[in-house]
């Protein structure tokens, strides 16, 4: 037993060392503002989670490097990253943990299924929350004044996808699969509604989970119904193997997905079978985003390839900081009204929120894999800039012009 107790001492010593380092040293003139960043950093969606976290971190690092003064004090922003494992239960635990740590605001979570239960905790604690990527409709329908998102919700995306499937892809017989998460199910429901309205027939509605890797059983059932298009509401980690398994079964229907599918990782996983797959992401294509190319350069030099949502996480963080600067306060009670009225040019486009906390403007871009890359096909939906709603900006300046 000698060496096991030696081990225990080593672990204890290491833990104490970590605790020692964790203690902050702050001078009285400097104000430390804690901002939480939550995404799945472990588990099957860890690659997407790290992408979001890096997006937020890039923004916070930039702000800290330039130096910000709020309320006469120099402010240092501190990003606290938490891992919700894309799991609703873990999401509420880390949300409570962040609230207990007295964070000022939260950027997150990534998944709608995690964002919605966590938002109740932030709401009750008066913490401001901006999700970069939760698109399920119910998130902003709970009447929470502190909940925002910078990505268009699934009502619009599902509608665009449904119309695109019926009109442009000429699908008549459609099979739908979803992963039973708030996001996947919600998107699939909206898609189904729009596709039915467009006159398509829904042959099958099958289900999987956000941890599965084998889809042969449901795909075989779908093959028996002979659809000409398969729609998947879920993430890339499932969509990739799903497309491969479809082709291995000899099921040659077209494949269509939402923003969870439209990642670099999807193409990597599906390999040659990714070719011709279509998927949508709310917002504009990267190269058409006002600050897209510049952001791409900054991000890739530091963290490597972007998956999907990093620019949105960056915008969420920048919007928060902007609101605090404008309100000249880091108190949620003071900067929240400013945030609700904010008008700014983000990397992803103009950012302004409606009364529910949804980002204004409803552009959705469809992409197709061609030659191993996502190529934008077309941008659908109204590209309504904040100006269209003619709401006066909080600072009295004219609303932003409508470039995109």
């Amino acid at each position: 037993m000698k060496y096991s107790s030696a081990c225990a001492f080593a672990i204890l010593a290491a833990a104490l060392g970590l605790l020692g380092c964790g203690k902050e040293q702050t001078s009285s003139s400097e104000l430390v503002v804690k901002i939480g960043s939550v995404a799945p950093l472990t588990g099957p969606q860890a690659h997407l989670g790290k992408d979001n976290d890096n997006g937020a971190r890039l923004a916070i690092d930039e702000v800290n490097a330039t130096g910000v003064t709020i309320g006469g004090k120099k402010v240092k922003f501190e990003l606290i990253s938490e891992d919700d494992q894309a799991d609703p239960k873990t999401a509420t635990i880390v949300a409570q943990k962040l609230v207990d740590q007295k964070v000022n605001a939260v950027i997150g979570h990534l998944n709608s299924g995690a964002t919605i239960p966590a938002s109740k905790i932030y709401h009750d604690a008066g913490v401001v929350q901006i999700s970069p990527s939760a698109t399920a409709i119910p998130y902003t329908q709970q009447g929470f004044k502190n909940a925002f998102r910078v990505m268009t919700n699934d009502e619009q995306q599902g509608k665009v996808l449904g119309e695109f499937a019926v009109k442009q892809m000429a699908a008549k017989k459609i099979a739908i699969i979803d992963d039973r998460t708030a996001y996947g199910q919600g998107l699939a429901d909206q898609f189904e509604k729009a596709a039915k309205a467009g006159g398509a027939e829904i042959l099958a509605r099958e289900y999987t989970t956000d941890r599965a890797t084998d889809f042969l059983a449901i795909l075989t059932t779908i093959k028996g119904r002979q659809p000409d298009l398969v729609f998947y509401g879920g993430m890339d980690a499932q969509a990739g193997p799903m497309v491969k398994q479809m082709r291995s079964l000899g099921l040659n229907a077209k494949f269509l997905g939402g923003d969870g599918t439209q990642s670099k990782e999807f193409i990597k996983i599906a390999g040659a079978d990714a070719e011709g797959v279509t998927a949508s992401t709310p917002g504009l294509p990267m190269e058409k985003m006002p600050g897209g190319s510049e952001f791409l350069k900054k991000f890739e030099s530091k963290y490597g390839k972007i998956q999907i949502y990093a620019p949105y996480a960056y915008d969420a963080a920048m919007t928060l900081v902007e609101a605090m600067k404008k309100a000249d306060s880091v108190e949620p009670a003071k900067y929240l009204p400013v945030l609700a009225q904010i008008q700014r040019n983000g990397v992803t486009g103009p950012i302004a929120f409606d009364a529910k906390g949804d980002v204004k403007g409803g552009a959705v871009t469809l992409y197709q894999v061609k030659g191993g890359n996502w190529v934008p096909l077309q941008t659908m939906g109204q590209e309504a800039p904040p100006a269209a709603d003619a709401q006066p900006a909080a600072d009295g300046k004219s609303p932003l012009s409508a470039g995109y």
Partner: protein
Amino acid sequence: MDIFLQQIINGVVLGSIYALVALGYTMVYGILGLINFAHGEVVMIGAMVALAVINALSGTALPGPVIVLLGLLVAMPTCMALGYGIERIAYRPLRHAPRLAALITAIGVSIVLQNSAMIIWGRQYITFPPLLPIKPHFIAGAAISDLQIFIVLLAAVIMVGLLFLVHRTRLGRAMRATAQNAEVAGLMGVNINTIISITFVVGSALAAVAGVMVSGYYGLAHYYMGFSLGLKAFTAAVLGGIGNLGGAMLGGLLLGLIESLGAGYIGSLTGGFLGSNYQDVFAFFVLILVLVFRPSGLLGERIAERT
């Protein structure tokens, strides 16, 4: 009919994959009475190490199966060393501790391995280059590839090989003696520590084979893949009777078939009341039923005899 045949093929292949992993669980359990929860992670490490070699070689002129074999030849010793290390560091000091302590240690080892793999190989999915014969043959409308046939055969061959090892060799006799009564076996001149180490080393070599097969079949590996795979394989081992090699094979095949047929037909059988989202519920319902009527699993008499 072709759809039904396809579902059977899906189920048998999935079941063989479960069986490949379940054999490793059941072998360690049979000798030590320890549920080695880290086994799923050893499978993952096997896949990761093999893929590192395979991806490095995939540009060369070597034929695909040879590259995969080379990957396996590197992964196997790595996993064997890992299995030896796990037993030496995590389980041996606890051999006389209550069973619960060993079980918790096993879970701890699994978390350590998972996070180490995340640090080494990152959070990204690692793809398996298309080296293996996955072009489907169509038999009566149902698709099956050479790789799928190979996986089913491999699981069967490994099961037979293990049965031979345990029941027909000197080493196997020592293993069975250790399982029955370690102290007495020690008095009879069996080096118990060596036997248990060998058990872990063989189990880990199997894990490497399973890891390469699973990542080749699904075309990807991820640091998280061992967790759910391990859980399903453990379920299969329990279903068949944990500790029984034939039971692991039977349990794996059965679980694969139940999942596949359940997901395929539960919707139409219940008139759309239950959908394919109930596929896991269905599989675990069968497990509960089996355990209610046969608590030691389908082929699990041997454990009952021994204790």
